[in-house]
């Protein structure tokens, strides 16, 4: 298996003390990696560092061997992403929004745009301006935008935000299908722990800006009744270590 993402000593700490500290991790091609952690633990910072929105204080991220800092265009040519909130140009239609993104890829044509709208259930709203869209529809458009270039790596920050039950099931099915059939790698953060358990095949937990564990879902479920139990255990263990260190 090839390495899709390689984090080496990745550090970005903000003045308020939050961010990510010394992240070392490798994600293999075809993996569905779930990134778990409480609010403010550093999940979004990692995703912003992976997509060049923020520059690291130290370290680097390699995406399929290309450095995000030094070979940005090459690194991002394999990436589709949805970071924080799903935004769109509200004075444009869903189709127009995707057309703008399509212009950066030679292989993406009108047919692919329609395919992505179909995949995310937005075909019937293709020519509606997105300012009239609900939160769920905006989220679907954000996912369509991420899928557009048929990327080898999808970075999704809370992809299920605002989706209804059917939308969540469709999304889970789509992620598994893309991973199995096309070998697409996923790096997903979500606070819906049950959904992460059902979708991801490897889990990393980040607490207080540090990655405290990374293991396969199968191995975790051999020792714990659910991912939730494992998460609680990791939080408590890490809390004990932190308090012991501070004493």
């Amino acid at each position, binding site marked *: 298996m090839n390495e899709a993402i390689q984090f080496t000593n990745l550090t970005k700490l903000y003045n308020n003390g939050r961010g990510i500290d010394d992240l070392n991790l490798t994600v293999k091609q075809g993996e569905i990696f779930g990134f778990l952690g409480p609010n403010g633990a550093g999940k979004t910072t990692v995703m912003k560092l992976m997509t060049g929105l923020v520059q690291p204080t130290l370290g680097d991220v390699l995406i399929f061997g290309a450095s995000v800092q030094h070979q940005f265009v090459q690194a991002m040519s394999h990436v589709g992403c949805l970071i924080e909130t799903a935004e769109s140009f509200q004075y444009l239609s869903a189709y127009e929004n995707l057309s*703008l993104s399509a212009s*950066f890829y030679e292989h993406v044509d009108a047919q692919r745009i329609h395919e992505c709208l179909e995949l995310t259930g937005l075909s019937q709203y293709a020519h509606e301006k997105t300012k009239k869209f609900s939160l769920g529809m905006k989220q679907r458009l954000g996912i369509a935008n991420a899928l557009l270039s048929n990327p080898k790596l999808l970075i999704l920050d809370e992809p299920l935000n605002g989706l209804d039950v059917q939308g969540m099931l469709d999304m889970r099915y789509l992620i598994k299908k893309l991973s199995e059939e096309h070998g697409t790698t996923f790096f997903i953060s979500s606070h819906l722990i049950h959904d992460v358990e059902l979708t991801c095949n490897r889990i990393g937990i980040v607490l207080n800006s540090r990655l405290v564990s990374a293991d396969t879902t199968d191995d975790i479920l051999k020792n714990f009744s659910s991912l939730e139990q494992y998460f609680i255990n990791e939080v408590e263990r890490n809390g004990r270590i932190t308090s012991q260190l501070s004493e």
Partner: protein
Amino acid sequence: MVGLQANYRNELYKIRKKKKLAAGSILSILAVLIGQVSATLINQNLGLLLVNSTELPLMILGVMMYSIFPLFITFLTIDMFNNEYNSNTMKLILTRPTSRFSIFTGKLLALFTVLMINIASVMILSLIIGIIFNFSSVTLIGITRSIIAYLVSLLPLITFTLFVVILANLVKSGNSVFFLTILSFIGMYVLGIIFHQASSFLFISMFDWYRLWISESIQWLKLLRMSLSMIGFSIMLYCIGYLLFERKVV
């Protein structure tokens, strides 16, 4: 290069879809019409010939350079930078396989293109209306002078655009950028009058340099000095703007 072209096309498309472009065009047309109607009314009621056919475009240019053109540029720049930062849509572009240099340059080229279209439209419209209302005074030299005046006016406006781009990347709020631009504009204009010797360092005071190009005796050396000064300013402002954009955390 592919990234630059894509960014340029996308920016033009977005500008075309916004209402501000239509508002700018309508204001420009109104300015030309009001200019001609005022000139005609003064002529009829007071018997004064305010402008002949080829002076109308120059009169309109004099007004537009200190009102609609800078306002139009400011609104478009705020839309292109501040509104995209604040609505988080800048992320959609920054996470595509294209460099920040291509994004920044694509945005600027689109701004300059729209500015050129706006100036050209006002020039053509004012020339046509001037000719229709005062057909007897049409001269080829007069038309050429108008075209030169409009063409050379692009340079100070490009320098001004680059200045607004810096403010848009320094300050978060679009409203703050707007007021800072107005204050800087007035400040530089007043300083240019008070410290006349230093006016070549204040590019706003060069907004009426087109008059030098169409005067009876052209001072080539002065024009060369002013051109080089504005080109130098533009290069410097472009570099500062790009540096700010490149380091911007979204």
